[in-house]
């Protein structure tokens, strides 16, 4: 009796987080095969970058993962700085660390809310968005934008940060653990939530590594790999924090890893604020790199990556000594995590597919570049 039915999940579907198209082959409600179609949001950022100056490309990185623009900016400008061989004074590095962690908090808050919503719980999303708003206001204070900041520039940052920002961040950070506890009351030990998550979308350690999974998804499978510890950049080697690792690699672990990371970020933000040195925050000859004057970058190539909230975001830049890069390759976490989706949803139910997609925490702008 079972007949196969092919169903199109997306590109217009409430829970594919954008324009991802998953083609499911169903037997009843069980998934027996799946295929994916991406690229509906492909804007050719890599090609665009080839005809823009290095400083202009910062605005393109905003539009990769529009939830975590700050960390995208930081990763990109650090890649170019590495190519140029310039160093940033400690205050600049502390500020970058601080803002990267705040961006991680924003992203993980959004993940918790949207994830709960995809599982049918409609309240957590309002809690997390209410709290996320506070950080967005803070970012607006320093950059003037709420989503696409373009705040960091090669060699430093656009403006000096006012003291008020640090004070308000401290206020926020003191309340953060309470906020996290509030999200957890509705979800973490909820029986339905656990039943929907435990054992769903399981990724084994070997499969995770073989597929090159990254970020919280990799760590949930029991691989304690975090670039902040493995290859410390910025001020992370001076920070005291732990890597969140899961055991089973299921959706529940991915959720727990992110909750743990929220708490660890809280620690890092507190340490950054405490240790924040005074002095300059831009590199010595920052004037040289200021817009609108384009600058040349010595020929060569660099691959630089940081631990973005969603995973490892890397920029592979080949320079030919001119004002624009010869080739930029963006290695984005959503892309590499989504590629492994088919293997995770084999034999699952439709509801599990939704949970699994949501647990990867993808943004299609980054996937499609």
């Amino acid at each position, binding site marked *: 009796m079972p007949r196969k039915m092919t169903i199109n999940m997306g590109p217009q579907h409430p829970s594919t987080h954008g324009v991802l198209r998953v083609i499911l082959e169903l037997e009843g409600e069980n998934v027996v095969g799946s295929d994916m179609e*991406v*690229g509906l949001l*492909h804007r*050719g950022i*890599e*090609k665009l970058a080839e*005809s823009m100056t290095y400083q202009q490309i910062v605005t393109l990185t905003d539009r990769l993962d529009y939830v975590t623009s700050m960390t995208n900016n930081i990763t990109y400008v650090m890649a170019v700085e*590495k*190519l140029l061989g310039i160093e940033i004074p400690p205050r600049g590095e502390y500020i970058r660390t601080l803002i990267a962690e705040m961006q991680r908090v924003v992203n993980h808050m959004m993940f918790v809310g949207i994830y709960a919503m995809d599982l049918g719980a409609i309240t957590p999303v309002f809690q997390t968005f209410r709290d996320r708003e506070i950080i967005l206001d803070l970012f607006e204070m320093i950059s003037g934008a709420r989503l696409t900041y373009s705040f960091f520039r090669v060699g430093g940052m656009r403006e000096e940060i006012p003291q008020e920002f640090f004070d308000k961040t401290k206020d926020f950070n003191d309340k953060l653990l309470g906020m996290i506890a509030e999200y957890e009351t509705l979800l973490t030990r909820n029986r339905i939530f656990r039943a929907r998550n435990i054992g769903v979308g399981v990724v084994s350690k070997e*499969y995770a*590594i*073989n*597929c*090159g999974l*990254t970020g919280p998804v990799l760590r949930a499978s029991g*691989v304690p*790999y975090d670039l902040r510890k*493995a*290859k410390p950049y910025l001020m992370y080697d001076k920070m005291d924090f732990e890597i969140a690792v899961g055991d089973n690699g299921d959706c529940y672990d991915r959720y727990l890893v992110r909750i743990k990371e929220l708490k660890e970020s809280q620690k890092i933000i507190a340490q950054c604020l405490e240790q924040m040195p005074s002095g300059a925050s831009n590199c010595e000859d920052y004037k040289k790199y200021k817009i609108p004057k384009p600058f040349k970058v010595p020929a*060569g*190539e*660099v*691959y630089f990556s940081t631990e973005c909230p969603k995973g*490892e975001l*890397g920029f*592979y830049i*080949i320079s030919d000594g001119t004002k624009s890069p*010869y*080739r930029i*390759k963006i*290695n984005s976490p959503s*892309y*590499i995590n989504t*590629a*492994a989706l088919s*293997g995770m949803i084999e034999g699952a139910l439709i509801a599990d597919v939704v949970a699994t997609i949501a647990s990867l925490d993808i943004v299609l702008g980054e996937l*499609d*570049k």
Partner: protein
Amino acid sequence: MKKENLKNMNDIGAAEALKKHFPSAVESAELVNHEAVVYVRKDDIKKVLAYLKEKVGFEYLFSITGVDYPDRTPRFDIVYHLKTLEHPLQLTIKVKVEEGTDVDSVYDIFKSANWCEREAYDMVGVPFKGHPNMTRLFMWEGFEGYPLRKDFPLYTEDK
């Protein structure tokens, strides 16, 4: 080049050890800026990557890129980025490919190569031999040309 020795190595050390192990397959191993870049002969890429994964512990392939050098022969570079998860080591493996020829797919060694190879094919037009589904990834079926080739027009005349 052994797993145990990785602990005391840096990127370029690993690259040179690789060259020592495969004297014929590896064309060059040098430090470009901060990256250890290894050029491997096109036909040996699968062998080298399998060795790196199984014997050495470079088990994490996370990026495959196509780069177009229109004035050079062979015209394309296919760039593989590999790293180990236990040590902070990273290798950039490059293969030179001439237009119209193909490269061996490494999909059966690294599952992550699935979309990466499709994307490289989509963007610069280098096909991968042995890939189960060598179709375009981002661009639609029937799209003409390969966008990340240098001769792909940035602007087209309005008709």
